[in-house]
């Protein structure tokens, strides 16, 4: 009886310092985010106080009032765009990653090469290209248009990540499936995809993050439209000669909160799933 208590106590005391270190590291990492939060509550006249206040002592909710009044509907748009981007990215990239990693296509190396080059095109040039194309096609200020544009941020990355992860899947497994008479599509769907869970999660995460925080495409392709992502809300506070920083920061806070919650929840689910999978193997 006492033995059990001791080991449990031991195990607990053995990991608590790791939690402590983890907390400290996270705090350091998130300090700039805290600073943003701090500024979002700061009155105009205190913004450049020297030395700066560590806490917003004379907090103002002016920034948030402006944001809540004007911006909340755009959160939904951002969510739809983010999820759309994730789906499109995975749908395009996972099969390509599988082919590049396992099917040794002729010209595959070249394709990876083109993917690399594609990522190097400066965002503003991409945005200008899309602008010209969408202007002619009448796709400006449309949600699907923005999903496609945002996916270009993630697709090359996703293909390369899928390739890297899928090349780790043992060849014998795929060979065995083939011997059992499974076709390429079947093998992909019931063996490769379930085994690539980590890659899918990683790719989805970044696809979502990129589209959520995208600014260049949003401002080039969606400004002035009925469906704007939340990041564009920032523009309401960037005047020609004047920027309302507490409202800008408040927009960023409001924009990142729901997504942060999604992240943490997703991460828990994923962590659970990954361990479960590991045990099963």
């Amino acid at each position, binding site marked *: 009886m006492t033995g059990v208590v001791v080991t449990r106590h031991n195990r607990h005391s053995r*990991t608590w310092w*790791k939690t402590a270190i*983890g907390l400290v*590291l996270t705090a350091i*990492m*998130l300090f700039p*985010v805290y*600073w*943003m939060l701090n500024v979002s509550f700061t009155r105009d006249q205190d*913004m*450049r106080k*020297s*030395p*700066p206040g*560590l806490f917003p002592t004379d907090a103002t909710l002016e920034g948030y009032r402006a944001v809540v009044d004007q911006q909340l509907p755009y959160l939904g748009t951002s969510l739809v765009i983010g999820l759309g981007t994730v789906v499109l990215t995975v749908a*395009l990239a996972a*099969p390509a990653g599988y*082919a590049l990693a396992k*099917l040794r296509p002729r010209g595959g190396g070249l*394709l990876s*090469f*083109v993917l*690399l*080059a*594609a*990522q*190097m*095109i*400066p965002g*503003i*040039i991409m945005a*200008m*290209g*899309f602008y*010209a194309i969408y202007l002619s096609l009448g796709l400006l200020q449309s949600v699907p248009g923005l999903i496609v*544009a945002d996916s270009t941020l993630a*697709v090359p990355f996703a293909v390369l990540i899928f*390739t*890297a*992860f899928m090349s780790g899947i043992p060849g014998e497994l795929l*060979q065995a499936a083939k011997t059992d008479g499974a076709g*390429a*599509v079947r093998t992909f769907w019931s063996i490769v995809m379930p085994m690539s869970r*980590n*890659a899918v*999660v990683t790719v989805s995460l*970044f696809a979502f993050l*990129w589209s*959520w*925080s995208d*600014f260049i495409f949003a401002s080039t392709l969606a400004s002035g439209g009925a469906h704007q992502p939340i990041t564009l809300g920032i523009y309401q506070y960037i005047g020609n000669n004047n920027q309302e920083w507490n409202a800008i920061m408040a927009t*960023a806070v409001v*924009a*990142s909160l729901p*997504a*942060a919650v999604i*992240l*943490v929840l997703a991460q*828990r689910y994923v962590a659970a799933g990954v361990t479960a999978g590991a045990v099963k*193997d």
Partner: protein
Amino acid sequence: MKHTTQLPDRRPLRDRTGAATAAAPSPARTTARRRPSSQQWAAWGFLAPVTLYLALFYAYPLYRNIDLSLRNYTVRSFVQGDAPFTGLRNYLTVFDDPTFAPALLHTVVFTVVSLVFQYAIGLALAVFFTQHFRLSATLRALFLVPWLLPLIVSASTWSWMLNSDSGIVNAALHAVGIGPVNWLTSPDWSLTSVILANIWIGVPFNLVVLHSGLQSIPAGLYEAAALDGANAWQRFWRITFPLLRPVSAITLLLGLVYTLKVFDIIWIMTKGGPADSSTTFATWSYQLGFGNLLPAFGPGAAVGNLLVVAALVFGLVYMRVQRKQGLS
């Protein structure tokens, strides 16, 4: 047609690696001959969507950027579309520019230092977070929060914190008795400051990708090594590091591409200044093309294309290394 010509030089390789060689001669031969071709069809079937996608959405901007760099574009000819073809003259202009040498140096320093620190910190954190302790998953998720912020916000926050007079960093230094540093306004510090902010932004990416990579390493290997008496350090260098190599390689390569391209952070924090002291190719390209009331599209695009070429060179190196590893 392509497939038939390719068969002969492709087959020996398959025979060597594939299990088919051991089978009975005549049926095996026919399947061996057919299989690569059907596999090719399958492979390209899987690749078709992405190829089409690339052609549709990247080709035009890329073409545009190349075209811009090869013609003498003024604002007038940009609109009217009658810019004369000038070959490589824009590139020569760029090479001759006094900004070229410092920009090159800054780009190299910025990229190398950022990459090294991002990767090292990211890997250390990834190893740390693979251990199971309370809140590990939640904290790891929180590390991604910076990525939820548009760069305009995070970069502005950094320049806020690093402000010479009212920044928190100088206030903290003052508290421990160190004089103020002109982080963003001194030519000696500006590059350091933007590198610092860039490392901060890049760490989560490295953490997440490397962490996923670590998850894919079978736990059994560690147990076996532990039984053999390897300590944690040895396990890291003998198991983790080698097995993580493919993921590390792609992380570094992607990191390189993203770092070469970084412009928002630098632009928002220092505008490449003061006196070009934090100008990289990416900010220079933007400065030429868009940072002025009168855009110089040609030279701007030329600098941008130099970056594309640089990334391609590294991509080539990556593929060479990968192929060698694949063969060995």
